[in-house]
């Protein structure tokens, strides 16, 4: 299960990545943002 944020109502929702046709259970929106993991990300400045 992966965590997403609804693009319309901003509520956190969880979906299986294999799921086709995702829809927000609260507002019905189909636009989602993938939430950033809480770990620090180390990258090179190139």
């Amino acid at each position, binding site marked *: 299960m992966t965590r997403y944020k609804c693009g319309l109502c901003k509520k956190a929702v969880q979906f299986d990545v294999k799921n086709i046709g995702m829809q927000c259970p609260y507002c019905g929106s189909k636009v989602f943002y993938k939430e*950033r993991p809480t770990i*620090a*990300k*180390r*990258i*090179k*400045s*190139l």
Partner: protein
Amino acid sequence: MKVKTVELKGNKGVLKIEDTDVYFVNSLRRVMLAELPKLAIDNVIIYDNTSALFDELIAHRLGLIPIPTDLQTLVFRDQCKCEGKGCPNCTVRYTLSKEGDCVVYSGDLQPEHPSFAITENTIPIVELMKDQRVILEVEAVLGRGRDHAKWQMVLAPRYRMETKIQVDKKHINEVKAFVEELPKDLVELKGDKLELKDPSQKSILESYLEKHKADYISITKDPSKLLFSFETDGSMSAKAALQESINILAKKYEEFRGLLKDL
């Protein structure tokens, strides 16, 4: 060799070098471009970034910020006693924490030590909208321009040969008529000598000569008299950058001499 300082203030340097060869001044130019060490942000640790720009783009923009460099106190990370782990002798750390709506500038990077505070503090990094935020930590290390352009301290080092304008004395009346047709501040006719008021305007004079087919005036370049000019990005003064470049060049010549002795 004669060296006359025309300008050596702040970030800009202009030198008049006489009785020299082009290859020598060119080697100094190339040392300035590729060999001069400079601090630049290399590693970025991002804790949170909800801005419109993705992490790699922010890291790239951070890398190009000029950071005040003190070569007396810092060493290269690969030559440091810490063996590349990162310690205060080889690494300068900054932190940044900002929440929108605002623009994140280079001056928002907070250094570990006040002596490394960013001097060019109005370089925009990212614009944050309401509720967007950026929290990160960066590590700046010494590097050279040959490895990445972010470690290139000197911008556009260049040299120009001094121009000599020769006038055919037999056609002095035609020369006078030609000079009258030129813009007022371009040249000056002193007796039978024609001089450019500003050496950088040479190409304008050349275009007039071509247009008027004035073959009684010829322009030649003197490769032994050069005007060398350069600018730094602000991480070091022009004077310090020049001195350090000369030291590096002298070391290279010494090394080469040592290698020749062993042959």
